């Protein structure tokens, strides 16, 4: 079965309208990201896989590809395909631990 089409009544909005609606929350999130990176710089030790994944995702934000979210999620995903024998944890960390 093929993918159904997207909603036919998706409203058309201008860039100004989108900016008016979402700029302030996005501005705040970007400042939080910058503050997090500053906080890391003030701390001792090396980046772990989560921070490496976060830094690797940053250039994607500046790409023109409209599928940035999917691209970042794919970057952070386990790329293997076979089930593993056993896991030593129940938790996920947010970024595949073996990310380069």
């Amino acid at each position, binding site marked *: 079965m093929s993918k159904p089409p997207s909603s036919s009544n998706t409203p058309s909005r201008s860039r100004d309208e989108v900016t008016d609606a979402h700029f302030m929350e996005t501005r705040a999130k970007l400042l939080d990201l910058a503050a997090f990176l500053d906080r890391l710089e003030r701390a001792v030790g090396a980046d772990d896989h989560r921070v490496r994944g976060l830094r690797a995702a940053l250039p994607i934000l500046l790409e023109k590809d409209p599928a940035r979210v999917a691209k970042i999620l794919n970057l952070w995903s386990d790329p293997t395909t076979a*089930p593993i024998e056993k896991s030593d944890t129940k938790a996920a960390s947010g970024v595949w631990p073996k990310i380069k």
Partner: protein
Amino acid sequence: MRYIEPHGHMVSRTTDDYQAMALAGCKAICEPAFWAGFDRKSADGFHDYFCQLTQHEPRRALKYGLPHFAWLCINPKESEDMGLAKEVMALIPEFLKAPNVLGIGEIGLNKNTRNELKIFEAHVDLAVQHNQMILVHTPHLEDKRKGTRLIIDALKAHGKVQPGRVIIDHVEEHTMAEALDQGYWAGITLYPESKASPQRAVDMIETISAQRVWLNSACDWGHSDPLSVPKAAIEMRRRGHSSAAIDRLVYGNPLEFLSQSPKFILPEA
């Protein structure tokens, strides 16, 4: 506004949440069996949990005028112990007779282990044998894409699963189209951090599909918001979506999927 909360772990929530959901326009709540935050040590613990889901929780919800429905399983986080998992699964057929049980769920994978996959396949077979719908939990974060593919492969491999009676829940931007392409329904879970925000969910509705999709809060004992579905509806309204489109997404879609069970009857229907 009216909406259905198709995935909420209400045993973890207070009665204040029931009241807030009712005030926000909730017309029904569906509660899949899940992990309690710790591993239960015996099948007896699950027997009591299934009694809670089929007897106690519906009575609690009814105090706020909310019909309560349930899905049963042993969740993937407790499926590593296959002996326990099989004991718990042996309890399920008797509980399927309860008037509020809609199917098997939320089954799936957590860390994508071989034992999790075997128990997932056993649950799928149980559902097919008993002509039950299936609610699938896809793994968290970095494990989601791989787990979603393993799950879809396993569903296909069974051979007797009807995709239209299965919802693949917790989809995100990188897994949603894959679920829909295979004919399954897709659930978008609205979490403050670890899944989709209301804004991202509406983006997905606009760019991937608004059909065969439901929104849910999956509110539980962790960081979650039982009012996230109406908040997504507000986001749609803010973007100029029509009242009919909003109603279709947050009420009509879950009603269509869930009504495949003859037990899913709402008082006003």
